[in-house]
């Protein structure tokens, strides 16, 4: 329960911190930390406009997408305390409930019949497909390492004892950060600020969404960031008492958001055809983690 609450709290300021970091990096003052949330509340108060060519799929998809992210957040534990839902194999549930949400966002983009949105949907589907093995090899390795298959059990029994294990923790953090960037269509895969439909991935899929629906989609993206931040934080908070873990959690979220902002300020986006290679490279890093685990538990060499 506690994880659900802190993730929701973190999601309120996450994108605000990214925007602020980027503003400061480019020499501007920038809007307040809560400006993105104010924008979302403004959208939530509005009604939605639906094109005549779209069907009911387009209307239900944003809600399903938002709900899928909330469900995924529910399985994430917080140190000693379990998530709202916790069972053996819940990380598979986590991955596929997110995939369900993504499936609906893809078919709703196709539903509009716009040539841009079809293109965006095909890109999003391709990159999600490529990122899946990285996530499963990563979580599978930790399941093998700890002998458990639920997030909560994995994280509480994950004690770093050796240098190899620390190295694994760092690699896992890197992979999770990159997965979060890809899942949220941020740099270097996608440029969330662009106004050019032809270069967009995620943004182009939501061109036709408006009002309440758009608000849901935008906030789902904040929630996803906070959710991956929480997964990363779980690597470090161990089983410490709450008065330590909660500050550590918010510190991790803050560092994560600032890192995203700094990275997005000082580099250019990848060329679209390099994205696939880049995402595959994540899988190979996840494989490194897998071999590392095999070494640690002595099944290899």
């Amino acid at each position: 329960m506690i994880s659900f609450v802190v993730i929701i709290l973190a999601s309120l300021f996450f994108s605000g911190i990214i925007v602020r970091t980027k503003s400061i990096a480019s020499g501007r003052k920038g809007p307040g930390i809560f400006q993105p949330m104010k924008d979302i509340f403004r959208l939530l108060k509005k009604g939605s406009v639906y094109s005549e060519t779209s069907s009911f799929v387009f209307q239900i998809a944003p809600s399903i997408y938002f709900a899928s992210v909330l469900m995924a957040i529910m399985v994430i534990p917080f140190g000693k305390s379990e998530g709202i839902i916790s069972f053996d194999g819940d990380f598979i549930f986590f991955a596929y409930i997110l995939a369900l949400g993504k499936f609906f966002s893809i078919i709703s983009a196709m539903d509009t019949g716009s040539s841009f949105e079809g293109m965006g949907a095909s890109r999003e589907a391709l990159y999600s497909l490529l990122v899946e093995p990285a996530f499963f090899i990563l979580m599978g390795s930790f399941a093998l390492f700890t002998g458990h298959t639920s997030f909560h059990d994995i994280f509480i029994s994950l004690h770093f004892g050796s240098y190899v294990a620390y190295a694994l923790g760092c690699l896992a953090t890197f992979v999770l950060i990159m997965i979060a960037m890809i899942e949220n269509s941020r740099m270097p895969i996608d440029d969330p600020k662009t106004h050019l439909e032809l270069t967009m991935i995620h943004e182009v899929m939501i061109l036709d969404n408006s009002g309440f629906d758009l608000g849901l989609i935008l906030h789902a993206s904040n929630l996803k960031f906070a959710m991956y931040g929480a997964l990363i934080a779980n690597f470090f908070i161990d089983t410490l008492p709450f008065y330590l873990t909660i500050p550590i959690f918010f510190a991790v979220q803050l560092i994560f958001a600032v890192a995203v902002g700094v990275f997005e300020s000082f580099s250019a986006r990848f060329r679209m055809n390099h994205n696939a290679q880049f995402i595959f490279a994540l899988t190979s890093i996840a494989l490194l983690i897998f071999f590392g685990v095999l070494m640690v538990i002595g099944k290899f060499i």
Partner: protein
Amino acid sequence: MLNYISVKNNQCIPFSSIPVLEYEQFLDYNTSLVKEESNHCVNYYGIRKQGKIVLICCIASDADGLIHISSTEVKPEVQLESFTARHLAFHIFEREIHENFGISYIDHPWLKPLRFPFNSFDKSSGIANYPFYKIESEELHEVGVGPIHAGVIEPGHFRFICNGEQILHLEIQLGFQHRGIENLFLEKKTLLQRTTLAENIAGDTVAGHTTAFVNLWESLCNFSPEADLQFARTLALELERIAIHTGGLSAMCTDVAYQLGSSVFGRLRTPIVNYFQIWGGNRLAKGLLRAGKTNFPFDKVLEEKLQTVFNEYKPDFDEMCKETFSLPSVLGRFEKTGVVTKEQALLTGAVGMTARSSGVNKDIRASHPHDYYQLSEHLPVIKKHGDVFSRAQIRREEIKQSIEHIRKLLESIPDENKKRQELNPPSSDSFVLSLVEGWRGEICHCAITDENGELTHYKVKDPSLHNWLSLALAVRNNEISDFPICNKSFDLSYCGNDL
């Protein structure tokens, strides 16, 4: 009799001195001229005259700084052999002639409408019923972009035929901004109205088009501009080049999502355009240049301010260039993207920055100098690869070069001529052609007067007219997601094309 009359830039000649050839001879002569790499067509257009169409072709020779002008008379209902079949660079001019007068060509490859003008020959043809180029295929898909631009700049329609992410073909259809500028030049009778029209041909090339107009008008009125007028025009042209190129670099960084470059170059552009405000009261240099006079004389105080602007601009610009042009993620997007080969640039008759980035030496400042460019030799910046990176480099180098130019200009500022003569009325039955190297490339204005010295025809050619085809060729086999950066690297004008 000679086939042609050779004139210098801004030289006024009697209209009757332009030789009238038979069409076959006209065709053979002009197409044989452009076989030389140093010759290119600066303007080819038609005017109505007593039920006939007079076609005037102006070929500029870069080697000797002359422009060879010849003409022919044809009846509108005839079918002609096209220039385009012999040299592709003529395609756009013949499309315009076909659209305006209904002259048909037997071997023109594609008489695609240019801008759907008000005075077009075939009133039934419009954008609403225009048949776009199609490919029958299950695998390929079409993407239509525009006419409303995502960044709400100017309208233009781009129709892509793609194989997945790869562009096979791009068709560009413009004309949404057609205002009938050329006819307005004839309808508006006062000089001020006409100067204002010239200022508004393209909002990003105010100094370029206005210089072309005022030089042309002064030549028509047999007025030779004094040093202070020439100085102001040259300075305005170079300042405009610096301002727009800096803005161009900023926009190119934006298109590859490089935030630092985007914001720093964007910030650097501001003091330059603000300097126009200090000098002439308008950030776009509107109102600054006038035929036969100046309302904003340049003096020592203005010079000091300009030196301060440059002293602050230059170090930041150099630092940001060093950063941008060595950042792997930016180079990864710029290099080998949107390549125009030298052959393509010559074939399509590219001009200006686009031509120079592909290794074609075309620069009016060097080949047909006007104003202060006549005093010093200009060495054009040439790049070889023709990709987005070359076009970014051209911008960087030309900004540095322009700053040098201006610093040299500022060493001796001519005094304002207080006893300036009034402009004479324009000479009668005359023809003038004015070439100016704007920041985008070669601008050409042509005017013809009647026996009372009234304008009977005015023709404007923006460099974009030549260069849009280069963009369509450059994006072939590139990814569709790279189209915006290719488009921005050319930075062509929509309204300059649509007029």
